[in-house]
């Protein structure tokens, strides 16, 4: 079902539930993986994904169709993720690196990256980025989202996004190189 059909049916109380069910089915995987990449843990991603759709339900009636529906949903999901990570940091008085370390620990326990050392280093480097920069990196590198669409999702200018992505790549390369060097030195020592 096309977005405009979903929106039209949602306006009608008789078909509202049906339309929203279609919307959830259409976008659930994209939202889930977008959230999951930010919070890593499945249980957190599950809670946040549901929260995102509850918010979509509440505000879909006010959605102005001058933006794409998916961009609008992505924006809600992004805000939910950033709020979640911020509240987690505030609740446990954690500095930025500690949240990154906690996420990295969860990632290490994930069987999907087990055994791939360079991939694990890359993922750890990504998790060391500040939340917003990590978001920009994920959207560009993994989702291959155009900068214009990213600007709508994040509410940031295209120029700022390009600069942010460029810095993120540099940081990641520096981190992985340094981690490689440490590993290489310890290999030499052995």
């Amino acid at each position, binding site marked *: 079902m096309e977005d405009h059909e979903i929106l039209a049916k949602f306006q009608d109380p008789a078909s509202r539930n049906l339309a929203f069910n279609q919307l959830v089915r259409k976008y*659930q995987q994209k939202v889930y993986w977008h959230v*999951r990449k930010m919070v890593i843990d499945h249980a957190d991603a599950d809670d946040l994904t549901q929260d995102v759709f509850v918010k979509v339900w509440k505000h879909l009636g006010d959605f102005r169709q001058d933006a794409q529906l998916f961009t609008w949903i992505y924006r809600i999901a992004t805000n939910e993720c950033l709020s979640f990570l911020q509240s987690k940091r505030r609740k446990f008085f954690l500095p930025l690196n500690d949240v990154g370390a906690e996420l990295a620990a969860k990632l290490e326990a994930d069987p999907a*990256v087990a055994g791939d050392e360079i991939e694990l280093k890359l993922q750890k480097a990504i998790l060391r980025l500040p939340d917003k920069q990590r978001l920009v990196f994920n959207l560009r590198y993994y989702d291959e989202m155009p900068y214009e669409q990213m600007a709508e999702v994040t509410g940031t200018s295209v120029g700022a996004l390009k600069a942010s992505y460029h810095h993120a790549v540099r940081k990641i390369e520096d981190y992985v190189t340094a981690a490689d060097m440490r590993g290489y030195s310890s290999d030499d020592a052995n």
Partner: protein
Amino acid sequence: MKPSFRLDQHPRRWPQPLSAPPAGYFEQLPTRVMAQVAAPTRPWQLATWLRQAPAYVRTSLASTLLLGTFAASLWLGAGPARQPSVAAGLDGVPQEELVDYLASEAHLDLTDLAELPARPLGITHHYLHPSAPELADALDAQPTDEAALL
């Protein structure tokens, strides 16, 4: 020495290497979401609102609740309400009914009359307002045993 890591030379794994959610997760998710949005109950809404409210709102709500509880306990614990006095109760009874009661129902004997001077004479003035002739008549109507007065 190892060469520097270059992201553009690294084979990109897509999607990002994370384990898949539990089997059947995406089949169940729409049902779970619909259960939340279709008929939310008021306590759920209140709990959600409280959970999502900013910290300062929750703090001020808690303070108000605490202060309100304290004020209520102070007000309720101020002691029992004052009972209206007997004299105030008698003030509401019409004069005629009082006189009728005293004349017909009350059994005054000479002992009462003998004890009367020992009490403040104005004891009944706030509820009984007899004129001097009425009082004299009432007393004259009572049988006397003069021996008791000696």
